[in-house]
């Protein structure tokens, strides 16, 4: 890399890092995640997600259908009205009714005093447990096990050659890389578009291009923006990883983490594709920035640019199929959609290594072409301060 490219990159990085707006944009999302996590943590302490059931719980059950054995301690012969009155007086906590038509309608009733908004009140499940325990007591251990369903079914997914497939486990890391790329696209697009507009808006391009070639200027800016993008992504991803680590033993997360299988080839290919895609995206946005003359013109491109890049996500279902259809094939090899399409197929394991290499090569070649176009266009449009819009954008 030429020393002038490094100078440009250094200048761009330092002045961006000095801007409060850069840090505001960088820290906003992690701060929001933190606030959200805090709210969920605090509120979850007050939410009843487990049935309240201990020796102090005052329970009554009216068994109108007569399905419970006499050993259940909560059976009552009092009327429904009397029991509801007891609830109101606080003499009962939970009251269940098993109506006569229970065998036909399969519906029981549950009465309790409301404590406000109880989205997660699961105390109705206590009746199921009592019924289950009562029936289990009347059969042998094996039948009881079958009845209560307190056993696990371990899932062993096999590939066609008989080896362990673990498709989801292998997909987690490549899909995480894809998600990081999506964040990169959303976070950095605007800056990529605006990077070369500044020289034109400030009418400084003539002076600067007598000191440095447009090639070194553009490449220096792209290098700087990629590094800044990496800083932003790191700031965003590290807190997420820390949170995952802190909650690694909790239910769903623990099972997901337990599934993760590192496929070195898929991970390596993902990283190569990520780098190529980031450079391509930077080159493409810089090219558009070189075409237009003002920040406002450039900003109108950011939405379409992001939509074009992430279009394959709208068809995600199709990317899970082992046999790719025409749309998937087109997305895989069309330069703008190729990065996300390849990341999805690599994640779901629905692409062969040769196919992946062809797709990645297309992205790499497209990145080089986009940067060359950006360089040429900037050199050509550098002095068209007022009219450097593409024809279709000019007012008639």
């Amino acid at each position, binding site marked *: 890399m030429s020393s002038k490219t490094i100078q440009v990159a250094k200048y761009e990085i330092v002045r961006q890092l000095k801007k409060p707006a850069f840090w505001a944009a960088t820290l906003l999302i992690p701060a929001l995640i933190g606030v959200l996590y805090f709210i969920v943590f605090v509120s979850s302490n007050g939410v009843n997600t487990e049935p309240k059931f201990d020796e102090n719980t005052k329970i009554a059950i009216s068994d109108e259908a007569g399905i419970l054995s006499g050993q259940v301690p909560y059976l009552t012969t009092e009327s429904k009205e009397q029991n509801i009155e007891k609830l109101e007086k606080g003499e009962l906590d939970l009251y269940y009714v098993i109506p006569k038509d229970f065998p036909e309608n399969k519906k029981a009733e549950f009465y309790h005093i409301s404590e406000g908004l109880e989205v997660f009140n699961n105390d109705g499940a206590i009746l199921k447990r009592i019924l289950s325990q009562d029936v289990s007591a009347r059969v042998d251990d094996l039948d009881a096990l079958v009845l209560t369903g307190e056993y696990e079914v371990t899932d062993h997914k096999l590939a066609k050659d008989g080896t362990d497939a673990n498709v989801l486990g292998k997909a987690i890391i490549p899909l995480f890389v894809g998600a990081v790329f999506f964040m990169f696209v959303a976070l950095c697009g605007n800056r990529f578009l605006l990077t070369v507009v500044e020289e034109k808006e400030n009418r400084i391009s003539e002076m600067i291009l007598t000191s440095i*070639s447009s090639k070194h200027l553009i490449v220096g800016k792209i290098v700087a923006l990629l590094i800044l993008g990496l800083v932003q992504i790191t700031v965003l991803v590290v807190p997420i990883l820390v949170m995952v680590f802190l909650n690694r033993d909790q239910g769903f997360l623990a099972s997901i983490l337990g599934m993760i299988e590192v496929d070195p080839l898929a991970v390596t290919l993902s990283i190569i594709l990520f780098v190529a895609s980031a450079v391509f995206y930077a080159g493409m946005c810089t090219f558009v920035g070189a075409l237009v003359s003002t920040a406002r013109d450039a900003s109108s491109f950011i939405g379409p640019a992001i939509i074009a890049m992430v279009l394959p996500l709208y068809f995600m279902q199709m990317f899970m199929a082992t046999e790719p259809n025409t749309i998937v094939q087109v997305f895989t090899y069309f330069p703008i959609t190729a990065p996300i399409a390849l990341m999805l197929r690599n994640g779901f394991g629905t692409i062969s290594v040769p196919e992946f290499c062809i797709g990645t090569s297309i992205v790499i070649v497209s990145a080089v072409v986009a940067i060359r176009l950006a360089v040429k266009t900037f050199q050509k449009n550098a002095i068209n301060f007022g009219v450097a819009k593409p024809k279709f954008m000019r007012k008639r």
Partner: protein
Amino acid sequence: MKSMVEVNHFKMAFSGKTLIKDLSFTVGKGEIFGFLGSNGSGKTTTIRALLGFYEPTGGELLMDGKKFNPEDSDVTVGYLPEERGLYRKETVMDNMLYFAELKKLQNAREWILKYLKRVGLADKADQRVDKLSGGQQQKIQLGITIMGDPKLLILDEPTKGFDPINRRLLMDIIDEHHAKGASIIMVTHYMDEVERFCDRALLLKDGTARAYGTIKEIKREFGGKSLDQIFVDVYGENHEQ
């Protein structure tokens, strides 16, 4: 005299409209050359073609015998363009340091502080450019232009908007660089500046050189009139000055 700049049969057309029909001239090494013409006559276009911003429709524009490339040229160029601009949201020092690094200027900070002191802006080093007046910004641009003692200075209306004191200061700076051996192309509408500084000049009209030679030769061609009068005669009463 060896040529620093050589323009041979330069032609330039935009969207089918010819701006420069056939222009040839040279600028010698160590010479101050006045490049004159009314607004829209094609002076800036010629300079931009010389610096590679425009691809000429015909002919060639050479600098020390080669097409200009900022990173593959023996000629270092300091260009003060007609379009004035700096990184407005950055400080004076950051702007100047950036260019100093690109121009590989040694002891850049020291040089910048010395220059700012000379042009009366020593206390503005840490101020943002957009807080400065137009004239102050122009001085910063001039400083960037002359950084590293370029072999060729191209100054497009360098004194536009300057008061007499700052005009004299700028002229002193130009004089110093000329004394160091720099070639200077000066685009100006002030004929007194041309008479005082320029060894030779060219009057551009209708895409060709209407007059070209030493100041004496040009005056002789127009019957000994002053350059001001020659300018009025050549461009007529209707030019858009």
